[in-house]
């Protein structure tokens, strides 16, 4: 009997959490008109969510591209197909690695910071303070953060892909001696703007929504103690990563079937 009750309780609390997350999303979306009137709030969040994430994205992009160049060259040269190195690097970056790795790094760098910040705001009763002053904390605090995440993700993913392509170019053309013209020409003839690049952008927007939503919800919904905040931060990273990887499969199956 006991385990049945436990199962029921966890099921109920899961459904309740899902409901709260959706209500929170609705509440944040309702804050949009207010945010448009005050773009300064969005600007500050773009700085902390987007700009400060650029460095880690740039460094990982270059290195992922360089590794793709090395690995791709190793395999392709066995078949005498080094000429397609550019296609291989660009396709894997634009379609998969760009959006996914950026989202994972974004969850680790920006998502965890968002959770911790909002969780601490809750623990130190700043959110309640806002409410006491008749300011809706969802609109004032959360909406700009959500929008900043949604705007930043596709831009970061695009930077990641471009730097990765140049990383692959550096290794393939610069070090291993693939023909420069072939590298770019094959890439341009095989990579399609709408099928490959735009679908990658759509993916990164979806990941941006999901990662930021999870981060904000975990922070907003945490137990307002130091332990609760730390748990919320951990859960943000774990849940975002799982959600990104799972959704990536679904999106890929839908887009590229």
């Amino acid at each position, binding site marked *: 009997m006991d385990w049945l009750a436990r199962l029921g309780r966890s099921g109920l609390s899961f459904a309740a959490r899902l409901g709260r997350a959706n209500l929170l999303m609705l509440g944040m979306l309702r804050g949009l008109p207010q945010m448009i009137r005050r773009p300064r709030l969005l600007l500050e969040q773009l700085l902390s969510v987007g700009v400060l994430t650029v460095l880690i994205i740039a460094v990982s992009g270059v290195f992922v591209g360089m590794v793709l160049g090395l690995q791709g060259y190793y395999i392709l040269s066995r078949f005498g197909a080094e000429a397609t190195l550019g296609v291989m690097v660009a396709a894997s970056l634009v379609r998969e690695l760009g959006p996914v790795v950026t989202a994972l790094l974004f969850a680790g760098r920006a998502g965890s910071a968002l959770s911790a910040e909002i969780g601490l705001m809750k623990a130190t009763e700043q959110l309640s303070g806002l409410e006491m002053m008749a300011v809706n904390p969802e609109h004032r605090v959360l909406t700009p953060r959500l929008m900043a995440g949604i705007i930043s993700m596709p831009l970061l993913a695009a930077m990641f892909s471009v730097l990765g392509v140049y990383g692959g170019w550096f290794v393939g053309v610069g070090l291993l001696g693939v*023909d420069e013209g072939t590298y770019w020409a094959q890439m341009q003839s095989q990579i399609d703007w709408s099928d490959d690049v735009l679908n990658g952008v759509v993916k990164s927007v979806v990941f941006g929504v999901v990662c930021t939503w999870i981060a904000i919800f975990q922070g907003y919904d945490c137990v307002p103690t130091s332990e609760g905040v730390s748990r919320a931060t951990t859960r943000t990273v774990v849940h975002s990563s799982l959600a990104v990887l799972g959704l990536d499969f679904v999106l890929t199956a839908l887009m590229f079937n």
Partner: protein
Amino acid sequence: MSKTRQIEILVGAFMAAGFVALFFLAMQVSNLGSINAGDSYKVLARFDNIGGLKEKSPVTLAGVEVGRVLDIYYDANDFRAVAVLGIYSQYANIPNDTFAKILTAGLLGEQYVGLDPGGSDEVLKEGSEIAVTQSALVLEEVIGQFIYGKAQEGAK
């Protein structure tokens, strides 16, 4: 410089960098950008079969890239494919009886146009046509001929 102005500049730079990256993906990585045929002259070459030749494939002479394939279309009058080769302007002294053939880089590599210069004093100019060409090697046909030949041998 005030703090907000600094933030504005940083965010502006971030968004500009993001859009530049997207633009780069569009023009340089994918096929949205058109080929830059700036300093080149166009030469036509007719092939019976172009195999896997594509636009932007290289055109080489003695192994050195001297141009790119600009366009490929089908000529309904003589049932052949026409490849428009853009030869870079610095290679202006290619004889007009040059021989063009479609070659493959490696066994499975990409296909390209190889030029074998002839001995004529006249040179290729904008709009001139290469008279002698050799089609792409289609692997299935070669294997098919080989097997057919073997079978004939066996029948004797």
